[in-house]
């Protein structure tokens, strides 16, 4: 959040992806048959379960690994994940909530000005890359933060950060 400007720049977190393990084998058929809001995909071998309150879609694998997507904040992701684990517990599995890890955070921001991508890429040579034939945005990668920023010519930015960079944030 850039609060030093006259017009505050709004950076909105739109998606948080997190994973955790239940440390027990899950019978997908049981979950599919006894849960509401579930989609069973036997070809892939997973169950999609959607929660309403923190709007979360979780992919559940029979090994006990679960991926939660769609949360709008890290806390929400955690809450949703725990909710989900509790739900599975009620279904009769010996669920233990472990290895919760935020994998990815996606945020969107918009600049009030347009960006000339070719010049921008030239000035930031190795860090930024722009392939008009492939994708309309220039990709700017910050290695030490493990972040990728996609800059569009209209001035909108999409920021994606890998989970490990968030560890220190969660602890603080």
């Amino acid at each position, binding site marked *: 959040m850039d609060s030093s400007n006259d017009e505050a720049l709004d950076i909105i977190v739109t998606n948080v992806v997190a994973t955790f393990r239940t440390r027990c084998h899950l019978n997908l058929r049981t979950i599919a048959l006894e*849960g509401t809001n579930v989609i069973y995909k036997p070809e892939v071998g997973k169950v999609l379960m959607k929660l309403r309150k923190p709007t979360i879609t979780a992919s559940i694998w029979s090994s006990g690994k679960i991926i939660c997507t769609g949360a709008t904040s890290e806390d929400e992701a955690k809450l949703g994940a725990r909710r989900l684990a509790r739900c599975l517990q009620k279904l009769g599995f010996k669920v233990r909530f472990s290895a919760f890890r935020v994998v990815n955070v996606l945020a969107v921001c918009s600049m009030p000005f347009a960006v000339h991508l070719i010049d921008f890429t030239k000035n930031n040579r*190795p860090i930024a*890359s722009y392939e008009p034939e492939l994708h309309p945005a220039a990709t700017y990668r910050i290695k030490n933060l493990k972040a990728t920023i996609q800059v569009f*010519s209209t001035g909108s930015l999409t920021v994606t950060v890998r989970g490990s960079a968030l560890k220190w944030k969660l602890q603080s």
Partner: protein
Amino acid sequence: MSSRVCRTCGGADIDVDQARGSAVCTGCGSVLEDNIIVSEVQFVEGSGGVSSAVGQFVSADGPVKAPLLGSGFHTTVGKESRAQTLQSGKRQIQQLGSQLQLNQHCLDTAFNFFKMVVSKHLTRGRKTEHVIAACLYLVCRTEGTPHMLLDLSDLLQVNVYILGKTFLLLARELCINAPAIDPCLYIPRFAHMLEFGAKTHEVSMTALRLVQRMKRDWMHTGRRPSGLCGAGTTLLLPRQQQKSTTEQDCLHQTNNMLSPTLPPTALLVAARMHKFRRTVKDVISVVKVCQTTLRKRLTEFEDTPTSQLTIDEFMRVDLEQECDPPSFTAAQHKAKMQQLEQELARKLDEVEGEISCYKDEIETELEKSRPKLRGIYAAYAKEIDPEDVDGLSSTSEPEEPEVEDAELQATTQHLTQDFLCQVIQEEDVRGKKTDDSKQEEETEKEVAGPQRLLAPLAVILGKLPSTPGLNLQQTFQTFNKSETGRKPDDDESESGELDLDGIDDQEIDKYILNDKEVQVKTELWMKQNAEYLKEQKEKEERIKKEKEQGTYKEKKKKCKKREQIEALTAGEAIEKMLEKKKISSKINYDVLRDLNSRGTGSGGGSSPSKASSDPPNSNTATRKRLSRHRRRRKTSDANQDLAANASIMGKRFRRLISTKKKKTASQVENSVTMTTQITTETASEPTPDPELDTSSTPTAPPPTVVEEEEEEEEEVEVEEECVSALQLVGDYGCEVEEEEVF
């Protein structure tokens, strides 16, 4: 070395003659060395008088295999792996590069890139052709040739994004900065393809100007260069009248299209301007963008002030003003619309608020009649609001949660204590008419407070009767629980214990269906996935069968997916299948075709013949064996017999569904040959097999039978397509048999 100082006289002046291979002291003349090992190049005369050097190429890096293979051997043998990789890479580069018409210098540079890539081990896990394509594209970019990644993907039939990924990775790893491609580069190329004849140069110049104009108008950032070119060319196409009005019309006409790529747009415009009849389709086929894209680009161009110029003016004048990028203006437009909508919504809310005040007063009256429900429903009342708010406007939402939280805390105690009673009550309530529930919900709302938007509630409640009461209750409880659950989360313990803080079990319970629901859902799911379950069962059975036969291979992965063969007749199907499978040359396809044609003519099959196939393996085995020997002796006699036999064999074959097509074809043939020898009686008799065995002259019965049986067992792996052709034959065979048997 001894040649430094002479032994006899001590002189240092030693003459070494390479040709003679001797070292002589010039002082005393004594020969110091004779037959010195020379390292001269020797030449040998080859066939046709061509002289070539004697020797072998030795790889500079890595160990070399003993050169015992002699010259003229296959060049890749005897070289170590790295050299082989490079050589094959070079070959592929040459091949691909020549298709793109790249000059030798570019190809050499590409090969250098490839060598770098190989040395950095970046080829691991990637298809060589992808890597080659990426290297070539890298060269194209650095040299500035008008080749697009799309061209490469066209040649290789590979998804362009996959190539792009590889290209980006290589560029990053090799630290090569590929300069951004200018759409202007593509124009001459596309113009040439659109065949403007003598005027090609003119058209391309105009198109270039257009593209440059587009660049300044910010139409080209974020867009594929090819689209811009296309639009530019089309705009240049028609240019019949010199009158300014018509020219403007032309510009506007072609401006109907927007392309995400500038050059096609530019070319289209340019072509129109020069009176060339090039339709959008032509341009699209050349430039590889889609129509919508082109259209969009032209529309964007239309919005710029440049489009208002006449053609002559455009060639002469350059407008100073620059435009904003089209997506930027579009986004701004969108933002404005959103603002307007919000304002409207706000006004609506105000009006509704007034109405709700009146409603409140009425409801307070009702409230007095049901005091007990207040505490319980207060919570529910709040829950409804978020729903309502969502339905109506976004502005009032932020206020709601805060108010709700405060009230919720008061009611949570009620909830936790009385919940069970409530559940029972609610269920009773649910059982009642929806009107009652409606009323109750209204009373709930009363408690909510005057500031709430209750007018919309009526609307929503109006919808409620249609939804099952259960869902409504569920949502209320869900909302309720979720709000209680919005407490700050503590870190869970490392041991993996699930921290139940903030998770309300009741809500979670709602996620789990009760028994009846489970049954219903199970039924539905079974029906829906019936096919999949059936497949699974078949697979299991197959595996069991294989296990019994001892041919089950563990971890048998899915075989390559074969496409379904579409054919009008069985004969066609068999032919196609045979083509695909590259069947042996020993099959007489003519007979095969005849088989089916005869087979369709005759009637259905007979059961006895089917029964006769009881000991199928041995029979077909023997038949196969016999027919193989007899294949050549096929005659055209008794075509009907052929058909009959086909049907018989067809029946038999059905048992052997698992046999490969090759074998079935041969079997069909075999049966044909066999039955020529055998009378039709065999069809009627239930056990013709032993007779067949005896009647036909077995050439080498036991081993071949065993062989074939084994082969059949091996072939037990089913390929579903086999069945189709087989069954086709078999089906026809049925008919034949029925007719034949008298």
